[in-house]
């Protein structure tokens, strides 16, 4: 059973539909106690870091997530859930969960042809093998929509990169936590495979 964290940050139902399609049982919750007891957690989301953090705090989900991480529960972050696991985000200058050291940084591209947000399909290159990315081949593309990217302080926590006016981390992780900047639930068969890999991780 995968527990999806509801903190008013969009795309929850998209992730739910993808898991249903894969035949993976899931439930949606905003209850911190359920999060603490979860077997597996997906922490999805679209939206702004400041608003996301304030809802997480209001609902007591911030401490529940920290405890679940410390207890070794497998956690998958997606999109904004790949950014607010860091210490801070430049978006809204928000203080975040701090599960990993580092911060979410705004793209600063100099090429006027590169538009912000970075939106569309882009290649993801695995830089360190990880079970969730086990099936990827060079040139495989995923769907991104974001203006900020995750930058862990410890480069060994970067598992894959993509390129948009320069390389940026597209997948990061530590121990039982893994997070992808792309929308696995909207990245076709390859994205579904990441979700399936997580269900078995």
């Amino acid at each position, binding site marked *: 059973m995968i527990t999806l964290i509801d903190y008013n940050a969009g795309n929850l139902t998209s992730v739910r539909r993808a898991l249903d399609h894969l035949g993976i049982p899931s439930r949606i919750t905003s209850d911190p106690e359920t999060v603490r007891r979860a077997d597996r957690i997906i922490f999805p989301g*679209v939206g702004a870091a400041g608003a996301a953090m304030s809802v997480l705090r209001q609902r007591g989900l911030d401490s529940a997530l920290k405890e679940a991480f410390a207890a070794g529960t497998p956690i998958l972050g997606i999109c904004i859930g790949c950014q607010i696991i860091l210490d801070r985000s430049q978006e809204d200058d928000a203080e975040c969960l701090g599960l990993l050291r580092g911060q979410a940084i705004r793209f600063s591209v100099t090429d006027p042809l590169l538009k912000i947000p970075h*939106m569309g399909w882009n290649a993801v290159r695995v830089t360190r093998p990880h079970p969730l990315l086990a099936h990827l081949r060079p040139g495989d593309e995923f769907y991104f929509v974001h203006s900020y990217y995750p930058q862990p302080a410890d480069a060994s926590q970067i598992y894959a990169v993509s390129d948009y006016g320069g390389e940026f981390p597209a997948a990061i992780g530590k121990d039982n936590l893994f997070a992808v900047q792309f929308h696995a639930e909207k990245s076709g068969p390859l994205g579904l495979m990441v979700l399936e890999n997580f269900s078995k991780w």
Partner: protein
Amino acid sequence: MLSKRIISCLDVRDGKLAKSVKFVDTRDIGDPVAKAREYYEQGLDELVFYDITASSEDRGILLDVVSRVAEQVFIPFSVGGGLRTVEDCSRVLLAGAEKVNLNSAAVKNPGLIAEASKTFGAQAVVLSMDVLKVPKSAAIPSGYEIVIHGGRTPTGLDALEWAKRGEGLGAGELVVNSIDADGTKAGYELTLTRMIAEAVGIPVIASGGGGKPEHLYDVLTEGKADAALVASMLHYGEYTVGEIKSYLAERGIKIRIQKDE
């Protein structure tokens, strides 16, 4: 680098897939859910689902078709046709779409673009413009006018000005649909597409007139579009998504090729 996107537009009338020529003479050509799934499996990058009768006949969006598509198709998906309020938008997003396509309602109430953008984020708001070529005038200096209600009503709005205004109001993408080219399969309107793509900082999706893979090549290079919308080419089985993409990739266009698992 980002790939150029191939997007298919599923025009739906009474729950069935339809295709028009110059916006009239529509006929039913199948089940939109089955088509969406077929194109997804062929490696399509994105879908647009458009209720073509919604705005002229005052009908709501077919939410059940939207949610059935969303259960089977795991690529980004937008919905348009008859969305007049933020609540209308919210319903289609909850039914499984990532984005809303605003068209006639945005012309009548431009504040809707700003309100939707603030509520759902710019990435969820696509401004869809139906454009007709007209003689250049003081009111329409670009020579392209915005029309609404499926192409039946001229608005007096200059297409280039409207595109810039839409961006300023918070649209995250623009669909530029040439009514002159729609359904002709004679190629996209390159002059119009390029003019708008060069004037805005958000992605431009070219629509109307795609009949052969070289038309997509032309609009993605000379037309400066970020994405191309295809309908007839796919709906009548003349080409698969894979064939179009292979053609473009061989000619140096950065495009996502879906490999067999």
